[in-house]
């Protein structure tokens, strides 16, 4: 065990830090749940890609730096420290990207990954359907094979980024007689294909973070299938594993929130201390963010040495999503009467973006498999309790 960074790791950190200092926009971008903000974030992806900082864990030939997990953690730390923009293409980068590298053909990788990397093609995800939710096995949208085409019909919902995205990846039922998780196929769909209708769904902040997507005899080349026909479930499970796993929520994000929470508390200490629960919650926030960082490093080190991620990774999402909710609830409590004000309200004072964060934090325990489902998984697969 050695908890010091190597010289090489320190040098890497310096390189990231100075590039970001030079390139991170001085003005925060608009949210990518608006059209203008979406465009700004797309441009930022191109900037990142030009500096080869878009996908640091990707192989060099794909524009990445072949970073290992520790370097990735360092990159993330610097990225959050620098308050660099959120990644509009996270569906592509963190979910589809790794899946493509495992299941895609060479042709698919060559065609898709570079445009994903430079922000030219932003990806939406098409998992959920009405009345399916977290239950992917209940998917009913169909893809009927007709020569070298699939004819897609049905509906997807809760598709993040889909309002302005270019492509969608999702699962469709190719065997009409199949049930549950059999007979599903993983297909990539250009969102400008005739027959597709995208309807925005306003989320808690009123902006269209999600969309419903309707498919009416949409024709897609068979070449856009990822993995074998009928093997969609196992491809998707790998993707969902990436989603729940290490790659989606780097500790840096929560450590920065904890740091800002400490600052908010100190700036409002006299009024905050009237409620003794606040100080305790701030301390817990820091400790839990620190625990999350330490545990993630431990896992990353184990993985880089060839270890496997086990069932205990299901604890990950519960831990960070509850931490995120608790931190933002504490901030709301500190802000008191001001907590309800939108950031741009003229008398909002020091409320910052805590309200946005609070709204967003509500989704943490829900998406990518509700925390209730995660708890079932922990009990059954990690602890071995009876089904």
């Amino acid at each position, binding site marked *: 065990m050695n908890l010091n960074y190597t010289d090489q790791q320190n040098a890497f950190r310096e390189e990231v830090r100075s590039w970001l200092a030079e390139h991170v926009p001085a003005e925060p971008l608009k949210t990518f749940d608006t059209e203008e903000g979406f465009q700004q974030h797309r441009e930022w992806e191109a900037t990142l890609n030009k500096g080869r900082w878009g996908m640091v864990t990707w192989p060099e030939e794909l524009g990445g730096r072949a970073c290992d997990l520790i370097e990735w953690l360092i990159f993330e730390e610097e990225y959050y420290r620098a308050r660099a923009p959120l990644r509009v293409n996270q569906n592509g980068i963190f979910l589809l990207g790794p899946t493509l590298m495992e299941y895609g053909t060479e042709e698919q990788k060559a065609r898709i990954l570079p445009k994903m990397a430079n922000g030219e093609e932003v990806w939406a995800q098409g998992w959920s359907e009405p009345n399916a939710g977290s239950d992917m096995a*209940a998917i009913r949208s169909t893809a009927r094979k007709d020569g070298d085409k699939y004819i897609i019909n049905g509906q997807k919902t809760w598709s993040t980024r889909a309002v302005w995205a270019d492509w969608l990846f999702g699962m469709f039922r190719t065997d009409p007689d199949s049930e549950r998780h059999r007979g599903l196929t993983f297909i990539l769909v250009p969102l400008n294909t005739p027959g597709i209708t995208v309807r925005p*769904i306003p989320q808690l902040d009123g902006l269209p973070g999600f969309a419903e997507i309707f498919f009416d005899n949409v024709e897609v080349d068979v070449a856009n299938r990822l993995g074998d026909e009928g093997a969609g479930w196992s491809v998707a499970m790998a993707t969902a594993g990436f989603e729940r796993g290490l790659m989606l929520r780097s500790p840096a994000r929560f450590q920065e929130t904890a740091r800002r929470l400490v600052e908010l508390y100190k700036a409002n200490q006299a009024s905050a201390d009237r409620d003794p629960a606040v100080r305790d919650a701030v301390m817990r926030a820091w400790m839990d963010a620190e625990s999350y960082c330490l545990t993630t490093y431990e896992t990353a080190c184990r993985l880089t040495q060839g270890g496997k991620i086990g069932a205990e990774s299901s604890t990950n999402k519960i831990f960070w999503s509850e931490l995120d*909710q608790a931190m933002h609830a504490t901030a709301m409590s500190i802000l008191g009467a001001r907590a*309800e004000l939108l950031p741009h309200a003229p008398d909002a004072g020091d409320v910052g973006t805590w309200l946005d964060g609070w709204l967003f934090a509500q989704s943490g325990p829900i998406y990518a498999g509700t*925390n*209730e489902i995660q708890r079932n998984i922990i009990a059954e697969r990690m602890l071995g309790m009876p089904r």
Partner: protein
Amino acid sequence: MDFTFSEDQLLFRDSVRDFLVNEVTPERIRGIWESDSGRDDGLWQQLAEMGLTGITVPEAHGGLGMDELDFVLLAQECGYVALPEPLVNTALVAVPVISQLGGQAAAEWLPKIAAGETRVAVGCSDNGLAEDAAQAGLLLWAEPQALYLLTPDQFSARFNESVDPSRRLYAIDIAAGVLPAASGEQAAALYQAVLDRGALGAAAQALGLAQRMIDISVQYTSERQQFGKVIGSFQAVKHHMANVAVRLEYAKAPVTRAAYALARGEAAQVAVSHAKLVACEAANLAAKNSIQVHGAMGYTWEVDLHIFMKKAWAMAGTFGDTGFHKQRVAEHIFADGVALGAGTTF
């Protein structure tokens, strides 16, 4: 010792509930959100016609002459429908405070309020901003040392957007030369009254909001299927709702007791703070657990949940935030010589 509401009080509550549930639907609230004024004059007139705007106005001034205890059940119903109109602040804060001021102010304004001619708004410097200031014919603005009754020409209002689109909040600037309606010790006492009464109104609304979120969630989870089962049949979903029900059940009597103390002119500060803390906590738990059992659906404007959730969040901070009320409780229970324990509640 009789800790029950009268049959009359309960019947009146039922008729107001029926009216509100039928008239103040989520659809109508969405319409109000999209209107320029953010208020619905027709609705205000309907409330006046039922006698509600003047419910606490003395009969001599054209009201029903009822008290805080009569109204507290109705305030819960206002919460249950997330009523955007400032009825609770009117009946629980503005009217009693103007009545206490008495004289010319009472004679002039109370009849107009009772008749629904004037919408009255309440602001309190502890809140920072005043709800409905630009939509009202009269603004009652309370500061620790000055209480103002302001007509629209006497102040300017700057709109501040709340997470709850039902809440129209304004920073106000009082025009030069406008004199307070009360100052000094009288104003200090009225400022406390505004805070306590506003807090009681927020607490009562929080109870109604919590109940509504339970009802919405129970209905949603009783219909929605997942993994081949109605999700409301999952034990984790049931327990989320049961936990809210427990906290809500034990927040009701404290709110009633606070209303009773205010209505009887008894020392009410600790009772009010206790009530607001537990009621807002129940409502916040209701919000948290309701969005969780709604799944992704709860995160959208598609379902009605957020109408109630956002108001519940706002109730926690208005008319004294958690810190304010906890401090008052602490000052009471940690004081030397205070009588605590069995037999000290009444």
